């Protein structure tokens, strides 16, 4: 496949193609454009001056559709958790825009912000540290009602909490117990019940099962899928376990060093990846099938992820990429559909030389 001899497909522009994917799409509920979050690096104690910035999220754009699950994968330090915090408005964005149902929310403050937050909730990674050990389960799950009393009037709260416990598969009689009386999987269910309390439309799950035992992970994944159908939730599912992300996601985005490097439907990403980093990531995942270990064609990347305080020029992956050319050093590749790609390979990929692997 030659890169120069690329033939444009008819009159369709890359933008049009990007939105004509086979995945059934609802309305976008969350539109993220060029989102940037830099953490300043300062020097000095009395007279602080900025000497640089950790570019944790550096220009990320994507849409989250109504009722879909968008998986976000990437290694530690790629900015996936910071992205979640910025979307939740727990960290103010440095620049860029986040629109919830067409309304800009990244600059909101006060009561307007409070109203939007009701609709975007979060489930955290570690069910051991994200629950206050001195509060009963009833207080933990009921606390969102204190902040948003319009959802459940005072008299109904106990009943509302018991219903939530029932929904996530815990005995409603446990309402007066403390977090330490529960196992990891049960605690994660409590975290999910708290996330559901305000009847949100979007739930951002940040590594919701990675702290759990293998035999319990499947239970929590099943619960999340059941709840999505029941309450028509949109999930953003952040994880590093690629097989779980594939199972639960409709679309998957791959992040590297603060950037989205590839995004597409689960089939497009897992079977027709065109970005070298995605290919390396997929090939490095240990497969629970010993017969695959001989046949598998693994790409072992050299070196470590560069520091986000001082990312490489041009393409950020070029320092570890086997395809890197001079162009990669000069030009930052855009996240777009390259017009020489065909079939399922036609999806957004931020590589100048995007192509499927020869022998998959």
């Amino acid at each position: 496949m030659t890169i120069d001899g690329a033939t444009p497909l008819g009159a369709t522009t890359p933008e049009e193609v990007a939105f004509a994917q086979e995945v059934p799409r609802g309305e976008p509920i969350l539109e993220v454009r060029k989102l940037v979050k830099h953490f300043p690096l300062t020097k000095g104690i009395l007279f602080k001056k900025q000497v640089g910035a950790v570019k944790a999220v550096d220009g990320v754009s994507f849409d989250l559709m109504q009722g879909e699950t968008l998986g976000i994968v990437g290694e530690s330090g790629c900015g996936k958790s910071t992205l979640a915090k910025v979307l939740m408005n727990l960290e103010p964005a440095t620049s860029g825009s986040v629109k919830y149902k067409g309304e800009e929310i990244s600059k909101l403050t006060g009561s307007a912000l409070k109203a939007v937050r009701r609709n975007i909730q979060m489930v955290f990674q570690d069910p051991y540290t994200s629950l206050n050990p001195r509060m009963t389960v009833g207080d933990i799950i009921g606390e969102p009602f204190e902040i948003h009393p319009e959802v459940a009037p005072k008299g109904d709260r106990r009943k509302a909490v018991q219903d939530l416990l029932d929904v996530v598969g815990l005995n409603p009689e446990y309402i007066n117990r403390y977090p330490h009386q529960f196992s990891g999987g049960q605690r994660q269910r409590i975290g999910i019940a708290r996330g559901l309390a305000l009847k949100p439309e979007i739930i951002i799950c940040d590594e919701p099962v990675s702290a759990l035992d293998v035999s319990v992970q499947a239970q929590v994944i099943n619960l999340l899928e059941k709840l999505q159908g029941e309450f028509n939730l949109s999930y953003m599912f952040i994880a590093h376990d690629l097989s779980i992300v594939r199972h639960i996601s409709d679309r998957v985005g791959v992040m590297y060093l603060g950037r989205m490097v590839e995004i597409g439907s689960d089939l497009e990403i897992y079977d027709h990846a065109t970005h070298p980093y995605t290919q390396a990531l997929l090939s490095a995942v240990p497969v629970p099938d010993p017969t695959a270990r001989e046949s598998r064609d693994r790409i072992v990347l050299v070196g470590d992820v560069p520091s986000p305080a001082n990312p490489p020029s041009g393409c950020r992956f070029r320092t570890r990429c086997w395809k890197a050319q001079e162009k990669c050093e000069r030009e930052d590749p855009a996240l777009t559909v390259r017009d020489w790609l065909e079939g399922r390979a036609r999806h957004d990929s931020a590589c100048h030389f995007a192509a499927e692997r020869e022998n998959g």
Partner: protein
Amino acid sequence: MSTVAHQARPAREEPYTGPLLDVRNLHVEFRTRDGVVRAVNGVDYSVSAGETLAVLGESGSGKSVTAQAVMGILDMPPAAIPQGEILFRGRDMLKMSKEERRKIRGQKIAMIFQDALSSLNPVLSVGHQLGEMYRAHRGSNRKEAKAKAIELMDRVRIPAAAERVNDYPHQFSGGMRQRIMIAMALALEPDLIIADEPTTALDVTVQAQVMDLLAELQAEYHMGLILITHDLGVVADVADKIAVMYAGRIVETAPVHELYARPAHPYTRGLLDSIPRLDQKGQELYAIKGLPPNLLRIPPGCAFNPRCPRAQEICRQEVPPLAQVTEDDGTPLAGRGSACFFWKETLHDD
């Protein structure tokens, strides 16, 4: 390149033909305020030189405690070993004097821990910590020790080892720190390495590098390797044989290919079935019901019976022994055992 080790190595003792390490009927318990926690309840396994045994289990299955008992690094009390034998080259380490054990630990059996950052001393340079092995065990002077530290760092492929030897642990990335831990374990060329979740704290792309390195060095030095993990993927990649642990017992042993193709214990089958597979997309994942048992109150009979889809009355009353698994015609399958009364039925499940 392997000069580091060869010149420093003392003469080997007489050739020994049996397994390198043979753990027999090991029991470990912890006496706590709430009662006796039975963490390990009769574990048998063996490893030969050049072989990789993977010990697979969830948290609380006793896989790490077994390894710590082998290393002799359990705090006793509260831990106690009421019965069992740990034979290293045919000699029971539990009956050795403290001095004898100390000679084996580090020199003959080395351990790699999960979290490299908390296993390294933050206020000493890595070169100092690597060299310490030679100063303490081989009586090398500072200069020799440092030269050997650099060679070791080269062996585990840390770039620019000579410049980085005086760096401190926090100046290295997670993958590099784990390489230093591997270097430290290799320093005295042990016969056996116990790696307790060596790549769990690392990212997938770095995980692959570290596992490759470990496998390569193992082949080169012809060491035995015990790999303790909860990750079915890592196991499939590197192990020769597998022991699956549940509630302090080995519930199944098998060569790696056979375990994945035809598990003979319902717990193993449940674990394999709960991995998301391509053809199950959009369907409910198989989940083992219930929770791992509390080790203070292990259920009577088979510990897995409250969660087992196959449980019968006998499972609630008798503890199933680790039985030899055979083909239908009675030919025993080499290295296969299952602690389930219904292993035959499980083997034929599909």
